[in-house]
């Protein structure tokens, strides 16, 4: 894999791929569905990307990836995207960024920090308000214990699922 020109298609030889698949199939690997892209980054920031790969996982946590590897020049793409964004005015150009003084930035950060503190405080305020209703205390404890959420979240989840324990836990562990 040393000299693959940019934008070139690297196609694994069919015969080899077939053989490899057969061999790997015997190892009892589990296919992981839903993966849309696998990328490898090399030291020099060159990126190999495989779109829509087939990914298999072994019990030991090793991965086998099948698919067509393409060289993906990320920095070039990023530069192009930035240029486009600047041209359309979505992103501030360098000059705009530069006009912000350190004091401004600090003020911004402080405002953001205060905002999050307020949000956290609000959440705390809610704490006492959620009424357990006719929910079983043990059920609430169980949900808390199984999912590490707050008591309030557990109560809300149980309510949303009409006291169904397994469904409530499932909704919280996603």
């Amino acid at each position, binding site marked *: 894999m040393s000299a693959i020109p940019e934008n070139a298609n690297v196609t694994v030889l069919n015969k080899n791929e077939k053989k490899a698949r057969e061999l790997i199939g015997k190892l009892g690997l589990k296919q992981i*569905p*839903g993966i849309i892209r696998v990328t490898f980054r090399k030291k020099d920031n060159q990126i190999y990307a495989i779109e829509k790969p087939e990914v298999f996982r072994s019990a030991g946590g090793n991965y086998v990836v099948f698919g067509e590897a393409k060289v993906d020049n990320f920095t070039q793409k990023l530069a192009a995207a930035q240029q486009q964004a600047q041209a359309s005015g979505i992103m501030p150009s360098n000059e705009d960024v530069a006009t912000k003084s350190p004091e401004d930035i600090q003020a911004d950060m402080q405002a953001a920090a205060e905002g999050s503190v307020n949000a956290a405080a609000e959440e705390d305020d809610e704490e006492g308000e959620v009424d357990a209703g*006719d929910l*079983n205390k*043990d*059920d609430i404890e*169980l949900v808390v*214990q*199984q999912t590490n959420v707050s008591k309030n979240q557990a109560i809300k989840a149980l309510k949303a*699922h*009409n*006291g*169904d*324990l*397994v*469904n409530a*836990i*499932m909704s919280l*562990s996603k």
Partner: protein
Amino acid sequence: MSTFNAETADNLEDIEKQFAVVAVEQAETYWKLLTSVPGSKLRLTKFDDEIYENFMERFPEYKDVERVKKFTEEELKTKEAKERWRKFFTIFEKKIEDYNFGTLLRTDASAEYGQFTTCFVVRLQFYAFEIARNKHGLNDWIVGQK
């Protein structure tokens, strides 16, 4: 007009797989619960007692604990059994969330979820069997298992 075009729609396969994913998650979640709490102390829904009473009333053959503990997939899927279960579902269709969701059920309460000890049922059947098993303490051995 809707922009959905059945001709070009993809992900269909994913949607189909989705319910299998949910079924496995449900099984894993339930198993994890059983490993930390004895089944006999567990309450799965607000209607556990009601489900149990109706189950025993409509399926008196399962008063036999051994048959609750271990059953065969075939006995649930005969034409007659299906009809009886359908009537059972109508009692709870308004009360039980996801009552008709595909769910994994162990055919043997003394075994883990495994390739040959699991069958695919409807959520309400899962509740009927598991609530009965829990009431008889048949799942208590699972506490502390990995």
